[in-house]
């Protein structure tokens, strides 16, 4: 755990050093945003997982540290599959941040490997025309495997507080990393549709569905591990931030 702390300290230093001086004569422009976009219980016919997806940032207008973690934890067996990213982020265009940093994967239980995997991450985070939140990233693992991910989400306001969140995620890999269930080529896609009600801006319970399907070599790897090719979950959860 010590190396992430060192990395975090270095990044924090970078952010503080790179921040413009305090705006006006007031407080320093240092802020934080900790958001659980998803914290939910999934209903499927299998492992009824707890899913989480957290994105947080710390910093000013131009330079930020991002921490992202997502994963799922089975409620019927000790399986856990998750990842965390620690990124330095810089505003490079009005709606876009450039992000660079590290990602660590963790897989436990009966999965293909309980070994950790580290990646270098280079990505973007921003808002595309039509208000799509878009997050493309490229990952290079410590063994040189290259993969990429595209995620996009949308907030569709039905009323001022009732909001539909469609989401889409796609993973591709150049090399296969079989111990991690990653085949080469097109890996999987995930589609989500969640209907939330903002009791407050920061607090919205939701219901929805989430569907995930593997492709190509990844299907075979999933089957070998005794997992289905696709997974449909009903989800109930809470989106909140502070």
């Amino acid at each position, binding site marked *: 755990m010590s190396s992430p702390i060192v990395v975090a300290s270095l990044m924090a230093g970078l952010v503080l050093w790179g921040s413009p*001086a305090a705006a*006006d004569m007031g407080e320093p422009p240092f802020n934080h945003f900790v958001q659980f976009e998803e914290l939910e219980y999934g209903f499927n016919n299998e492992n009824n997982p707890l899913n989480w997806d957290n994105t947080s940032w710390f910093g000013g207008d131009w330079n930020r540290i991002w921490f992202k973690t997502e994963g799922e934890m089975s409620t019927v067996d000790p399986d856990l599959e998750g990842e965390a990213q620690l990124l330095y982020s810089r505003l490079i265009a009005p709606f876009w941040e450039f992000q660079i940093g590290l990602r660590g994967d963790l897989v436990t239980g009966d999965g293909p490997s309980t070994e950790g995997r580290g990646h270098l991450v280079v990505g973007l985070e921003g808002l595309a025309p039509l208000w799509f939140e878009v997050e493309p990233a490229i990952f290079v693992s410590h063994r040189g495997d290259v993969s990429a991910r595209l995620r996009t989400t949308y907030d569709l306001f039905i009323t001022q507080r009732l909001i539909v969140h469609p989401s889409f995620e796609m993973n591709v890999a150049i090399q296969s990393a079989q111990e991690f269930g990653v085949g080469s080529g097109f890996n999987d896609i995930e589609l989500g549709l969640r209907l939330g009600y903002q009791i407050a801006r920061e607090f919205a319970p939701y219901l929805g569905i989430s569907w995930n399907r593997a492709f190509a070599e990844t299907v075979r790897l999933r089957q070998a591990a005794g997992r289905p090719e696709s997974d449909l979950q009903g989800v109930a959860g809470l989106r909140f931030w502070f």
Partner: protein
Amino acid sequence: MNDRVGSPVQWPRRRFLASVATATGGIALGRFVTGCATVGSVTPARRALVAARGETIDLRIAETRVGIAGRGAVATTINGGVPGPEIRLREGQDVVLRVNNALDEDTSIHWHGLLVPADMDGVPGLSFHGIGPGTTFEYRFRVRQSGTYWYHSHSGLQEQTGIYGPIVIEPSEPDPYEAQREYTIVLSDWTFEDPYRVLANLKRYGGYYNYQRRTLADLGDEAKRMGFWGALGDRLSWARMRMDASDISDVTGATYTFLMNGLAPDENWRGLFRPGERVRLRFINASAATYFDVRIPGLAMQVIQADGMPVAPVETDEFRIAIAETLDVLVEPTRNAYTIFAEAMDRSGHARGTLAIDETATARVPGRRPRPLLTMADMGMDHGDMPAVSSMDHGSMSGGGSGGMSGMDHGAGSSGGAMPGMDHGNMSGMEQGAGGMEMAPAACRANLDVMDRHDDDGHGAGNAMVAEVARSRVTEPGVGLGEDGWRVLTYSQLRSATPRSSNSPVTRTIELHLTGNMERFMWSFDGEQYDPDMPDIELRRGERVRFVLINDTMMAHPIHIHGTFFELDVGACESNPLKHTVNVQPAERTSFVFTAEEVGRWAFHCHMLYHMEAGMFRVVRVRP
């Protein structure tokens, strides 16, 4: 927490301002008055402003538990109340204002619109070092003007928590407008949240306080007005630009209680009159982040002063008062009661009071109008059919001599194609304004006719959009106004009451773009947020300079310059009105001229408190 403020009769009548007649000679009257009896632990709001006058005035800034809208709140107060006392001065007098800081942080007071030496202007870091906790700072200056002004803290976000109050300066010559009574009406916004929390919320999520956005549920209503494809097309155009047409105000009634002289709408501030009297109302917008649209249904208002400076009388039914502006009107009420109705520009709330013949008469409170939407005109889209004035005689430009020629759009109409959902309703406001301009010689109009085409500089990542074409909008009352069948004041109707004898030539034009990135709540000039290490905007004393402001954002910004009045270009040459704060509408090109007279470093900023804090601030330095 919820002690209700009792019925008005409970409160002592402290109507110092009820009559101009009482305004003679009293020294230090009510200087240390700290308000009324308390209900529980809460000091309820005062029913009337407290006056402070004389040659020496003491102001004490402290945290006080006050009642606002019947709820207890901790405010930073001046002499115990929100707003602070009304400082009444006389033109030509010398005044000492002793400001004692009982807070545990630095504070300051800036005299908004007053011509004072730079070291008395009250901006920490520019004029002085601020007023430390437990210390007293003495402001000393000669009062060189008359009119309605105000004062407020220039430290952090203290203005939002209550450090503001009115200033009224009686003229040394008799006032040309006789009024039997006068009332000062301070409009403001109050939040029970910590203002730094408000700012942090906006930084995390620019639309945090907007509960009036376009939704799927109201697509039907819009379709009725614009047609289904029109409404959908308009929404798509905004979404493509990642802009929100309902983003009229950053901070809204979702957190704000709007106050009139410190009283919430239900508490109903009341001013009395006798039928047949002529009443002068001195409106001051002391809000941190709210523009108000003010009207008194059933009563025409004669505008006689803007930003403390006399203007040729103009009659109107409604006016938009930008943050930090002041406007004096005369009214001649004849009925028993009238409602003074001040809607927030985004219609998310209102302030309200009553003018009545006694303590009981009431008038109907009108409903708030629907929330307006910005139009493509506010985006500065290049529409050939937009301003009718663009087709006017361009030959007159050469006489203008203000630059900007190269940026002109002679090809009006070249790439027209109005958006299907476009709302031309605002155009109606143009006609009334244009009426006042007919007499202006063509050369005076030069700056109003400029169509400034934006160059390739997008002002960096701190700025989300540019106005493709910016132009003057002084003939337009602003978004959401001008469609109700009554008159609405526009800048183009304002004429200085006493035309200046000559206008010496402008030697230099300084162009600044108003920029911002709503998603991250970054605000700036030319895309650069203020940083104390930034070079000042340098002027030489005696230099006559034109400022051209181009608003590249979709929001209106009240831009204020300290230490001077400027001649706002409304196309009237020597009769252009003098102002200290100008509302620059979205995609507007605003032009004003002033002669740098006071040596020193002066603040120049957006008076939206949170925009200033987010970086929309510069320093203008006048060198000897």
